[in-house]
């Protein structure tokens, strides 16, 4: 294997070792989307009733569950690439120590992104199991959901770490989450795009999470069409650009 793959894997290993003792934290986050699904799907679902998804009448649980896959992939990645990333970058100088070894900035970043993606993907896959058990999956297309979730995780790993490179202290994360929370709510996780006023729809469609949610919902419902290419393209391009920018930022911060 080439260094570009092998060296980032050592960063992943480091994270596995570090989480070995705190695996409870990892696993407990798995239950969050399940509680959401129960509360929203069953509770709110009773009030909302069935809704129309591309011609099919589906329950609210069927609607919201795919959205929760995308958000759990996002949250898994974001957590590692914000608080943990900041700790390693500024507080603990973990990256500085790594850079005294053969690892370079790109290796460190790729390793961290891969780890965040794996973590986000892990939540998505376990949640998919729950969805299957509750009969919320309607198509063989759903087999592609883990791949889509990994892409969502990777994109938010890149975007999250980009924001983090600008944080000057822990308080700055309040600002960061002030930006990400509305994204979460605006993403069609909870309401279909048609619910929003016409002028707001392009805004929703421009946000990163929307593309993950819509793609995964199409895969879960079997309503895949050409829009899937657009979603994948958006996420790949966003990931590549953000990763490049983070790479630059880290160079500026760490290699003075």
């Amino acid at each position, binding site marked *: 294997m080439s*260094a570009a793959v*092998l*060296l980032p894997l*050592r960063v992943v*290993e*480091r994270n596995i*070792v*570090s989480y070995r003792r705190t695996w409870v934290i990892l696993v407990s986050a798995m239950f969050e989307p399940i509680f959401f699904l129960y509360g929203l799907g069953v509770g709110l679902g009773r009030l909302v009733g069935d809704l129309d998804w591309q011609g099919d009448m589906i329950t609210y649980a069927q609607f919201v569950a795919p959205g929760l896959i995308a958000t759990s992939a996002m949250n898994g990645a974001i957590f590692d690439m914000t608080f943990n990333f900041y700790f390693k970058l500024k507080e*603990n*100088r*973990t990256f*500085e*120590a*790594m*850079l*005294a*070894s*053969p*690892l*370079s900035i790109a290796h460190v970043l790729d390793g961290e992104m891969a780890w965040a993606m794996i973590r986000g993907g892990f939540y998505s896959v376990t949640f998919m199991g729950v969805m299957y058990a509750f009969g919320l999956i309607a198509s063989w297309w759903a087999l592609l959901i883990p791949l889509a979730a990994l892409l969502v995780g990777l994109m938010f790993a890149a975007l999250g770490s980009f924001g983090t490179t600008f944080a000057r202290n822990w308080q700055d994360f309040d600002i960061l989450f002030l930006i990400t929370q509305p994204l979460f709510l605006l993403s069609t996780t909870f309401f279909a795009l048609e619910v929003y006023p016409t002028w707001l729809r392009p805004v929703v469609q421009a946000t990163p999470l929307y593309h993950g949610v819509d793609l995964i919902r199409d895969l879960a419902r079997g309503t895949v069409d050409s829009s899937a290419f657009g979603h994948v393209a958006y996420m790949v391009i966003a990931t590549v650009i953000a990763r490049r920018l983070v790479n630059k930022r880290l160079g500026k911060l*760490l*290699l*003075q």
Partner: protein
Amino acid sequence: MASKPVIAKDLSKAFGDFVAVDGISFEIEPGESFAMLGPNGAGKSSTMRMVSTVSPRTSGELQVLGGDPLADGSAIRSRLGVVAQEDNLDAALTLRENLMVYARYFGIGWKQAGRKADELLEFARLADRAKAPVMSLSGGMKRRLTIARALVNEPDMVLLDEPTTGLDPQARHLLWERLYQLKERGVTLLLTTHYMDEAEQLADRLVIMDQGQIVAEGSPASLIAQHVTREVLEVRYPADSTVDFQTLGLRNEPLADRTLVYTDDGEGTLAKLITDGHTPTSSLVRRASLEDVFLALTGRTLVE
């Protein structure tokens, strides 16, 4: 190893308009232990960071272990051990995990990494703490672990930025002993320090830096011989005294609380001062040290 581990020519580092390292040139021989001395802000760490390939030079030439730090960073670092001025141990890991994970960064297999970790914990006298979290260590223990970690890849050269700052005397001596062992094994050492005795103990050769420049270079003994006398007489007088050493023909350095008189015969000079009627309130005769060299060169003390 034929080539010199470090060759620096007119090496400079600027941060914006501020020049931290101002055209320094030096070479280190294989197996040599080379020290950089200088007051706060002299540019020691900036130089170390350029050598450790994590800080691009602004101008000049630099070769480390036969490579260019800008082009061959990863390959150079694989043969380097680095102890930064501030500890950067992995707070999420235990002592043993710190060493093992770090060994993995160098591509050492897990099994070998485990063996190496145990060996180095022994070396740092921290074996009984192997499973403790790093955060539970005292400052000195952290420093020892950091130095142990720099050795996981059996480096050809170790860079140590103030390795013993903050250590108690016992830990310092332990560390000197360990560094001496490394030197015996043929490892090249590049270290910075504020402690004269440390440089005299460890360094074959050293440079004294001040404001980004090298102001003197040589072995500890040759620097002392070159810039100061064999002995130093320290004398204290009451504040209102008017002893004029200059007219007495004595080379001296007035400090805030005492005066240093450079002489080859401290006792003789003291006796002469007393017979001349300039009896000091207190006096001390000692061997000249690098501290005196620095003072003579810059007019300032090293540790303020």
